[in-house]
């Protein structure tokens, strides 16, 4: 393995893992509050899946930086400061109403499907293996969330209005998801990861016609910040809750 690519990939994996972790944590807040019992179970499953995917990316990150893959993920999740997280702002936004949460999950699911379809062909085998493992689950996620988006978009005046509001709020955050990491071009050149620009194009080609078919209008607002290195106020809030118990007693066995 090329040594200079290793830290670049480790950094890229952290953005993937942090996105999954924070989104999974946010979505898990619906547990006990989803519109109906069946969806409560389904959405909690989905949140758990994202946490599971986060662990896989954190473990690979740990191997690349020479840490123990069994213990290092907990270190990363519970004992990093907000400014050390690399997640996009969209995953940390508060849940809002059901339309907002389901649409955010849909937009992210398309990203994951597009990304994993490329990553299964990664020249870096451990990355390709994880992508292959996660992919079937993400295909199901997308089926679930696109079913909801379609029904809410084409449903009642109220459901359409709420979906449109959600889209207006979420859209300016989507660009950041495809913003390349510093040095990512090297990974792309080596065939380890797909070109974020290619992913963005593929994502738009899937998302835009689907939203239009769901009777939603694409916002014209500009993309917000693209840099992932500035933690959002919402991330700070999530982490203070997520890390609270672990930090009470860092040496505790559990």
């Amino acid at each position, binding site marked *: 393995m090329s040594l200079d690519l290793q830290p670049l990939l480790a950094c890229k994996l952290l953005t993937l893992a942090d996105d999954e972790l924070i989104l999974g944590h946010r979505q898990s807040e619906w547990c006990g509050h989803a519109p109906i019992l*069946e969806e409560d179970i*389904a959405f909690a*499953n989905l949140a758990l899946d994202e946490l599971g995917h986060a662990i896989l990316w954190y473990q690979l990150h740990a191997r690349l930086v020479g840490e123990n893959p069994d213990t290092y993920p907990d270190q990363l999740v519970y004992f990093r400061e907000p400014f050390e997280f690399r997640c996009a702002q969209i995953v940390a936004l508060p849940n809002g109403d059901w339309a907002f949460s389901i649409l955010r999950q849909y937009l992210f699911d398309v990203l994951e499907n597009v990304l994993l379809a490329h990553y299964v062909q990664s020249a870096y085998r451990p990355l390709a293996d994880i992508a292959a493992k996660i992919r079937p689950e993400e*295909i199901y996620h997308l*089926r679930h969330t696109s079913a909801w988006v379609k029904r809410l978009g084409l449903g009642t005046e109220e459901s359409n209005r709420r979906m449109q509001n959600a889209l207006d709020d979420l859209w300016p955050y989507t660009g950041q998801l495809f913003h390349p990491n510093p040095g990512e071009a090297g990974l792309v050149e080596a065939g380890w990861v797909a070109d974020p620009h290619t992913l963005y194009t593929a994502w738009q080609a899937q998302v835009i016609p689907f939203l239009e078919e769901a009777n939603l209008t694409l916002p014209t607002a500009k993309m917000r910040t693209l840099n992932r290195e500035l933690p959002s106020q919402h991330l700070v809030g999530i982490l203070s809750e997520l890390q609270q118990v672990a930090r009470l007693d860092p040496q505790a066995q559990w």
Partner: protein
Amino acid sequence: MPDTQWPQFIVFDQPKEGKPPFYAGAVHAPDPEMALLNARDVFARRDSHVYLWVVRESHIFAKTAEELLQGFSISSEETSENPETYYVFQKTAHKGTLVQVGEVEAANPESAMAAALASYSNPKAIVWWVFPAWAVHQTHPTENKSLFGPADDKPYRHSSFYPTVTLMREINLAKEKLNWEDE
């Protein structure tokens, strides 16, 4: 209390190749596609599955053994319609569930039930269900990897991970030994 949620769909599950589908439970959903997705999340997150079926509850014609003793009428007009396939399910033990025993050709639910009683006579049967094949919405085999595949790698998927289950089993076993009835 009346059910004010979405329509109810009954979920059937084929656990293994060659095994008949059985009644797994019910989900609420606005339409069959959402019913299948809900069924997957509620009933198929852990064990192995070949396919799931969902059937609108209102499409199922059900009779208990007691109800059958009272008989039911079959309209002679309706029996002249073109016959179609009905699936036949039976429950033979109070602790058991409904399992498919076969299918019959019939023109309406009542005559399907009559045909089922004739073809699959079983003195142990305590509940009978029939419903037309067209009422079934089924997962497609090409989707199995995304619907059921991930469960194969999940930790804690087996009930043996949960000591409460084994504990309850031991309690029930002890009750049986003592001839202890809950009722």
